[in-house]
C-alpha cells in the first residue's frame, strides 16, 4: 500500500472519530427524550418505591445532576474509552458488551457469509439461465424473501422447524442443562445457529441474488465481454474471468452496508430466538432505561458502521484498479 493510501486511511479514521463523537452526543439527547426513569425501574424491581431510595439511586448514577453536566461527564469519559457502569448489573458497560460480542458475531457473521455465498450463487445461476424457468424460480423466491418481514419469518421458521417438525432448537445458543464439550459443543451451537442465521441472512441473500443477477446480465452485454468471446474462450471462462468480477463491484458496496450491521443489526432475530447477544442486551437495556448500557451499544454499533464504510472503500480500491483512494 502506498503512503498516499495510508495517509488517506489515517485521515478517514480521524474524520470517523469526529463523526462518532457527534453520534454519541446525538444519542445522549435522543435517549433522554424517551419517557421513563431508570431509578424507578430499578426501585420497582427491588420492591421499594419510597422517595428516599429513589433519590439515593439517582445520586448514585449521577442522574440528579443537570443534563449538560451529565453530557460533559459522559463525553469526557468516552474520550478516555470509558463507557461507564451499567445501572443494573453494576458492571463496566464495555466488559458486558464484550462478553456478549462473540455470540452476536457468530450469528451475524454466519448470516453474512451465508447470504453472500448463497446470494451470489443464486444470482449467477439466474443470470446464466436468463428468462428460463430456473431464473423465474430464483427471482420470485428472492422477491418473497425481500418483501417478508424478518420477525414474521423468524416466528414461522421456529414454528415449522422446531415445533411442528422438531428438527431444530428454537431458542438459545446451547441446550440448557447439558454441558457439552469439544465437538459435541460445536455441533450443539451449530444446530442452534441454523434458524436464527438463516432468518437473519435471508433478506440479504435476496438482495445479493437480485443485484448479482441484474449486474451479471448488464455486464455480459458490455463490449469487453465480446472481446473475450472473440478470443475463443469457453463461455464458463468468460463468465468467471470477465463477467463475474466486474459484476460483483456493486455487490461489494452492499456487502459493506451489511457488514456495518454486524453488531447492531440482529436485535429482532436475537429477541425472537433468545440468542444471548448484544441485540438482546440492547433490547433489555431499553426496557430497563439503562442509559449507559444503551449508549454503549449504540456507540459500538455506530463505530462498526463507520469502520466498515472505510473497509469497504479500501476493498473497493483493491478490487477495482480504476479507483484511487485520495480525496
Amino acid at each position, binding site marked *: 500500500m502506498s503512503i498516499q493510501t495510508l495517509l*488517506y486511511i489515517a485521515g478517514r479514521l480521524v474524520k470517523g472519530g469526529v463523526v462518532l463523537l457527534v453520534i454519541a452526543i446525538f444519542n445522549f439527547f435522543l435517549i433522554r427524550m424517551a419517557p421513563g426513569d431508570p431509578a424507578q425501574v430499578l426501585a420497582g424491581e427491588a420492591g421499594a418505591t419510597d422517595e428516599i431510595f429513589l433519590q439515593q439511586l439517582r445520586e448514585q448514577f449521577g442522574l440528579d445532576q443537570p443534563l449538560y453536566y451529565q453530557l460533559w461527564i459522559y463525553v469526557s469519559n468516552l474520550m478516555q474509552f470509558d463507557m461507564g457502569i451499567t445501572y443494573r448489573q453494576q458492571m463496566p458497560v464495555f466488559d458486558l458488551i464484550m462478553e456478549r460480542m462473540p455470540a452476536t458475531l457468530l450469528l451475524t457473521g454466519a448470516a453474512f457469509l451465508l447470504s453472500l455465498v448463497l446470494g451470489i450463487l443464486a444470482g449467477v445461476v439466474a443470470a446464466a439461465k436468463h428468462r428460463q424457468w430456473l431464473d423465474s424460480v430464483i427471482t420470485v423466491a428472492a422477491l418473497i424473501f425481500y418483501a417478508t418481514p424478518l420477525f414474521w419469518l423468524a416466528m414461522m421458521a421456529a414454528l415449522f422447524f422446531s415445533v411442528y417438525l422438531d428438527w431444530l432448537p428454537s431458542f438459545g445458543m446451547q441446550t440448557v442443562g447439558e454441558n457439552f464439550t469439544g465437538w459435541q459443543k460445536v455441533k450443539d451451537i451449530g444446530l442452534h445457529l441454523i434458524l436464527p442465521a438463516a432468518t437473519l441472512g435471508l433478506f440479504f441473500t435476496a438482495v445479493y441474488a437480485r443485484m448479482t443477477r441484474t449486474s451479471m446480465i448488464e455486464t455480459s452485454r458490455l463490449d*469487453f465481454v465480446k472481446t473475450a468471446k472473440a478470443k475463443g474462450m469457453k463461455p464458463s471462462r468468460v463468465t468467471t474471468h470477465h463477467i463475474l468480477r*466486474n459484476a460483483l463491484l456493486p455487490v461489494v458496496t452492499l456487502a459493506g452496508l451489511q457488514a456495518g450491521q454486524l453488531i447492531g443489526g440482529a436485535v429482532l432475530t436475537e429477541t425472537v430466538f433468545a440468542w444471548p447477544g448484544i441485540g438482546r442486551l440492547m433490547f433489555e437495556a431499553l426496557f430497563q432505561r439503562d442509559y449507559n448500557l444503551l449508549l454503549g451499544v449504540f456507540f459500538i454499533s455506530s463505530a462498526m458502521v463507520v469502520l466498515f464504510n472505510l473497509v469497504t472503500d479500501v476493498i473497493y480500491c483493491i478490487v477495482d484498479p480504476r479507483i484511487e483512494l485520495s480525496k
Partner: protein
Amino acid sequence: MKPLLKVENLSIRLPAGGDREFAIRNVNYDLMPGEILCVVGESGSGKSMTANAIMGLLPKVITVDKGAVIFDGYDLASLEEHRARTLRGNRISMIFQEPMTALNPLMRVEDQIAEVFLVHTKMTRKQRHDRTLALLEDVGLPDPHKMLRAYPHQLSGGQRQRVMIAMALALEPSILIADEPTTALDVTTQAQILKLIKELQRKHNTAVMFITHDFGVVAEIADRVAVMEKGEMVELGNRDAVLNNPQHDYTKKLIAAVPPLVSPKREIKPLQVPPILSVENLCKTYRTGGSWLSKARIVKAADDVSFELHRGETLGLVGESGSGKSTVSRCVVRLLNSDSGKIRLSGSEIQSLGTKELAPFRKRIQMVFQDPYASLNPRKTIGQIIADGPIAQGMPRKDAFAKAAELLALVELPIAAIDRYPHEFSGGQRQRVGIARALAHDPEVLVADEAISALDVSVQAQILDLIETLKKRLNLAVLFVVHDLRVAAQVCDRVIVMQKGKIVEMGDTRQVFESPAHDYTKSLIASIPGANWRSDTTAVTASGVQEGAA
C-alpha cells in the same frame, strides 16, 4: 489465387417485428490472402452483421437464414460452437470500434493478451510473458515492460486500440476483422493506427476485412471495396474503380456526400462590425482530486482564448478531443462558468452575470447539441420540447406552440411531428428538432457543438445544408464546433484551431487549409485519411454543402 474466405449467398434473418426482415440478404464476396477489403455502408447497412456472422458472435436471437461462409474447408455459418471456438482468436480475430470499452477494466494488459495464448496454445507462463512483451513492442507501444502491468484506464484511446491489435494478432491469424477500429479515435491517432494495421498486415500477409463508414479511410487503406446498402451488397470492386468511377447510385450518393478537402472559394465579405459575440482572454481550468494530502491534477481546458464572431458568419472551432473546443463553446453559452475573461454579447458583458441577470441573455445565444439521441427528453412531445424554452421566457402557451409549428416547417419537418415523441424519429430528424428548439428563442448566435458528428454522411450533408440556409435567412452568427476537418473546410468562413486549451491558429478557412502556419495544424491536415483523394473540388459536387459555401 484461391480465396481465403468465401461468403456465399449469406442471408441473416432479424427477429420478427424489426424494421426489416433480413439484416443482410444474399451477400457474396471473397477475401483473398493478404488483401484489405473495406466493407462500407451507413449505419444499419448490415456491414457489422456480416463480420459477426464470420466470427460466430451473432446475438442468440439472430440466425443465419441461408448461405455459407467457407473458410479452410469449414462452413463458419453452421460450424458447431466448440469447433468455431478453436478458430476464433486463433485463425480469425477481430478488433472493435470502442477501444475505451473493449478491454476488461479489471485486468492488466498482460493478462488480457496472454489469455489468447492460454486458451489456444500450450505455452508456459514464461513463454506467454515473453510473447506478450514482443507483441507490445510490435504494435509500437512505449515502454512495453510498464505496459504489461498497466490497466486499461491508464492508457489513451490509441494505446488501447494498439493493445487490441496486439491481442488480435497474437497468434498470427489468417484473417483480421476490424470493425470501425478508428472511428472513435482522433484524426492523428487514426492515421497512426491505420498505418500500423497496414504495416502489420504486410508483414504477416494477413487478410483484413475492414469495416468503415468513412470513404477517406477507404481511400487510405483499401485494396478492394464492398459497398452495402440496407443489407444488400450493391457494389464490389477495386478501390480506385469504386472511388473514382462508382457504378451504383447509392455509392455515387455516398461519395458525393463526402466533403472535398479543399475549401471552396468564397467572396471575402467584410465582417459586420461590431461583432455580435466577442470573447476575450477566456480561461477555464479543471481541477480533479487534490486536498491537503495530495496534489490536484490541473487541466487548462481554455487558456487565454480570444475571438470574435460576426453576424452572417460561420466560425469553425476545430481540434482533437481534449483540445478544449467543447469547453469554450459551453463557456460561451454559459452552460459552464469560466474562471476569468470577458464574453460580450452585442456589447453586454455576460461572463460574470448571475443566474437572474443572465436570463434575458440566454435566449439570444442558443446551442445545438452533439447527440440527437440523448439531447431530447424522451418523455416530452416534440412540441413541448420546442415550446418549453419560450414558455419559460414568458410566452403564452398557445403562442409558443404556434411558434413550434412554424419552426417545424422551417426545419422541414411535418407539422404532425408536434404531437409525437423523439423515439419516433431518426437521428437526422431529431437533430432538426434540436435546431428548431434552439431557434425557438430567435437567437442571434447559434452554437453547434459537434452537431453532425453522430450522423451518417448523407444525413450530415442535409443538416449542414439546413444550418447554412437558416444562417442566411435569419442572419445568424454560427459557432461551429467540429472535429471533422473535411466538414470544417466546407462550411466555415473562418476557423480557429485549438490544441490543449490554446488557440494555435485562426484565419480564413481556405487560407488555413491551403497554407497552415502552425505545425499542429499541418499535422492535423496531414492526418486526414484519403487526403490525396478528392483534393479537387470539381470532381463531384457535394450537394448542398457547396451551395451554401458559394
